[in-house]
């Protein structure tokens, strides 16, 4: 009996060990060639704050208008064409209607059938003209603005305003907004993440428990910092990702996972945008681009080196496991946004739009 039991335990342990042995992970795919677009290609000069894809059309929100890419050239729509204001901060294509919603420094434009329809804080219920983020939830629109959050129902033309008066925000500066099942997540500059529960119609704040902007006393006990610039929801893993000016936070529904440049592959703590996609999160910072796969604890770092790019694979311990250099680089290391097409990575930079091409494995095999 005892011998049988021991044998079973040994067999079980062996089986468990074999099962737990690390599988060979596929080599990460990186973009090895960069094509840059600026005024010569038709883009207006200056920064590009945001990108959006609508079918085959690529939209870029720039400091000086709304640009779109067509047949190798960019064309720009400005306030002369009806855009509410030149500086475009956020874009949200509506998959249902085909309309494009555009957040600017001067209000919101709805671009539909080639015509702009504008909403401002003066002519509508929009709480503020500076619209950093837009999210579409069914037929309802959410706007993160510099003075609170607006919810708009186009069917009834009803606006609802959320500010310090009726939501748990210390500072009403909304920087980004995204939709998750049953909830809306708002990135607040100084007030952490606000979660709006659709069914209960109440807000719940997620903030940094340390209450300190720069010191992380308890690494994974909450949001890494309250100065949140961006929030993104990953449908594959059901994680949220929050980009702050002082690090990266991921929330798996129960626990927080915080990452700093000092002890991970994060290229910079100053994050402009996070974009969750297929169990990975892409991170746009002031020093370059990251792709992070939390399941594999694997970071890809795109760092500009002269005219080229140094791409690194960094493991969970912060150790560089592989490195490759490419001859071209994005137009600037200061990045604002990313957008994906098959085999293509569009990047919004401080000096125009860059297009990542020629995806290849970083190396042949990773062990």
């Amino acid at each position: 009996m005892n011998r049988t039991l021991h044998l079973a335990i040994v067999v079980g342990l062996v089986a468990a060990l074999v099962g737990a042995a690390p599988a060979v992970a596929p080599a990460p795919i990186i973009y090895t060639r960069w094509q840059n677009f600026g005024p010569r290609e038709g883009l207006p000069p200056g920064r590009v704050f945001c990108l959006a894809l609508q079918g085959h059309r690529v939209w870029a929100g720039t400091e000086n208008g709304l640009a779109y890419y067509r047949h190798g050239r960019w064309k720009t729509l400005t306030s002369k064409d009806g855009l509410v204001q030149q500086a475009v901060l956020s874009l949200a294509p509506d998959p249902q209607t085909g309309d494009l919603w555009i957040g600017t420094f001067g209000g919101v434009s709805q671009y539909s059938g080639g015509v702009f329809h504008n909403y401002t804080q003066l002519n509508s219920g929009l709480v503020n003209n500076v619209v950093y983020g837009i999210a579409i939830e069914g037929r309802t629109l959410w706007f993160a603005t510099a003075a609170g959050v607006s919810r708009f129902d186009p069917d009834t033309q009803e606006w609802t305003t959320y500010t310090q008066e009726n939501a748990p925000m210390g500072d009403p500066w909304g920087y980004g907004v995204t939709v998750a099942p049953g909830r809306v997540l708002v990135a607040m500059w100084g007030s952490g993440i606000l979660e709006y529960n659709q069914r209960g119609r109440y807000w719940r704040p997620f903030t940094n428990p340390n209450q300190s902007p720069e010191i992380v006393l308890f690494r994974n006990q909450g949001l890494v910092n309250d100065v949140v610039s961006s929030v993104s929801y990953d449908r594959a893993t059901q994680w949220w990702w929050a980009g702050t000016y002082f690090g990266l936070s991921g929330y798996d529904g129960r626990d927080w996972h915080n990452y700093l440049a000092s002890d991970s592959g994060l290229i910079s703590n100053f994050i402009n945008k996070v974009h969750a996609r297929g169990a990975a999160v892409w991170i746009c910072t002031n020093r370059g681009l990251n792709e992070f796969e939390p399941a594999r604890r694997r970071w890809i770092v795109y760092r500009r080196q002269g005219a080229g790019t140094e791409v690194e694979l960094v493991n969970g311990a912060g150790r560089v496991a592989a490195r490759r250099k490419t001859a071209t680089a994005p137009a600037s290391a200061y990045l604002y946004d990313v957008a994906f097409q098959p085999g293509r990575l569009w990047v919004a930079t401080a000096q125009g739009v860059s297009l990542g091409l020629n995806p290849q494995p970083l190396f042949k095999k990773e062990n």
Partner: protein
Amino acid sequence: MFKRWRRSCVLLVMAAVGYGSGAQGAPAAGAPHYLDPEAVVFSPSGRTLYVLCQGSNELLALDAASGKILRRATVGAHPSGLAIASGGRTLFVSNTWANNVSELDAHSLGLLRTLPTGWGPVGLTTDREGRHLFIANSESNDVSIDDLKTGKELKRLAAWRWPHGVMLSRGGRYVYVSGLQAPLHPYDQAPVSEVTVIRVASLTVARRIAVPNAVQLRTPAEAPRPWPGVILIPEIRPHNEVPIVRVSQGWTLNNAMAALLPREGTTPATLQFPLDSMERGFALPEGLAFTRGGGHILVTSAASNRVAVFDTRGLLGLLGHPPARMADRMDTAARFEEREIASGRDPVAVAVAPAGRFAVVVNRLDDSLTRIDLRTWTTATIPLNGVEAITPRRRGQRLFYSARFAYQGGVACASCHPEGDQNGLAWDLQSRTMGRCRVTVRTLRGIAGTAPFNWNASSPNLETQDGVGAAAIIFRSQGFLGHKRELEDLVAFVSSIPLPPNPYHRVGQPLTRQQRRGKALFDNMGCAGCHNPASHGTARFSVNVGTMTAADDNSCFHGGRVDIPQLEEIALSPPYLHNGEARSLEEIWTKYNQTQKHGVIAGMSKRDLNDLIQYLHTF
């Protein structure tokens, strides 16, 4: 208190209109039961004629040959649009005041199901395959797309403003939606209306075609071969951007037609031409149909009780080589008009039988049809067996939709007040001001009990307003002067134009939390001192709320005082303020209340303002 007021208001309107229920729109017991036929379609075989009756909330099936009524069915409140689909097996009726569509079996007229829509559904069509139903929502300013398999609303596409007519293109690739009002624009400029083009394959807006200087775009119709893609739309071209005393020929409005001409790979070109002639107006052009084979175009003039017959080749040939300033030339229509045919009163729609031998015109205010033999051009009247007794209100309704009293028959009351509402335009009407004192057209819905009238409160009653004022300023004629009975009839009708059900707040329903907060603000700010909820949201005095501009003449507005407009249906009737410079309710306070005379809003948050506006929507 509010509920009591709302209820009493509705009862007053119902009593005035003679309707048993504002929500149902059914005639009260003992009240005349006018049918008010509004729309007509033929069965594919041409043997059956379906007539939609807005006044009685009915759909009639007639034998097309004899005119005999075969069946009738009750549909929803205030039906407006009618479409036939599935090879003639199914009918769709839009119930404007019920915010839904009735799907009926075309043979039995039995109700198959009720489909969801936005607010105020009017025109509608299906795609060729019968998979989707496209419905223009006049109040929510959008187009519902319903999935006919599931019976659910798939999506809504924005359509600015008051989308009305809906047409499936001949090839089935696009749905065209025309608007009765233009998108909101600067008050001293000409309106630019819109035709919304929906791509059927993707169910998205393909383009928005601008129709400059036009309002009241009616249902489009596409020309047959050899002119595929050419689309004609009856319209009205207002001259509101110039002082009315400067308008040449006395026409304040041109009754006209827009033609959309296809261009390869880009937005169609828009040509416009008047249907008025030098001597006679073509007031309220509404119904339009091509004859089978496309040789002729039938267009109804609802306010002059006639149908014009145009030679298609002549008209479309002219569009290929348009003469200079065609849009302003009053001899244009004479080049292609072959004949005119007298109809009954208020011919609002026309349809051609599939075999092409005859057409049917809907005479809304006669409760009848006119059958036109398209070979001999002779006519016969088909009565729909409505009520024969004509009340003063009915006589007044006929006058409201008639250009009989206007100079050269160019305009009717409904030219500026479509369906008793307003057209969204501001006008300089006064001869002595010349370019100043612009004022908006105000809705006539629910106007009873809101005296005085005019933005400067100069008309103490509707008799004055519709008599002297209308004659001298609008009609450029003697108007109703010397026609006392007609004036009384008109007033009887105007004072009984009903308010449609308020989509923001159903009678008997409690206010939402946001609306309650807005009501508290309304009460605390003292808004009720002028906008008394117990009196339609108005009061019998005028007041200076600091809205005068440099363009306003003190002789028009004594001491800067303006009439206090009623608040009922205010959510659906922009623009606001006397000159229409506020294009939304928000702008009344965010842009045009610098002096704080129109409510002290210092310290009010944006959230407070939103709540206040949500409450105003409930009026």
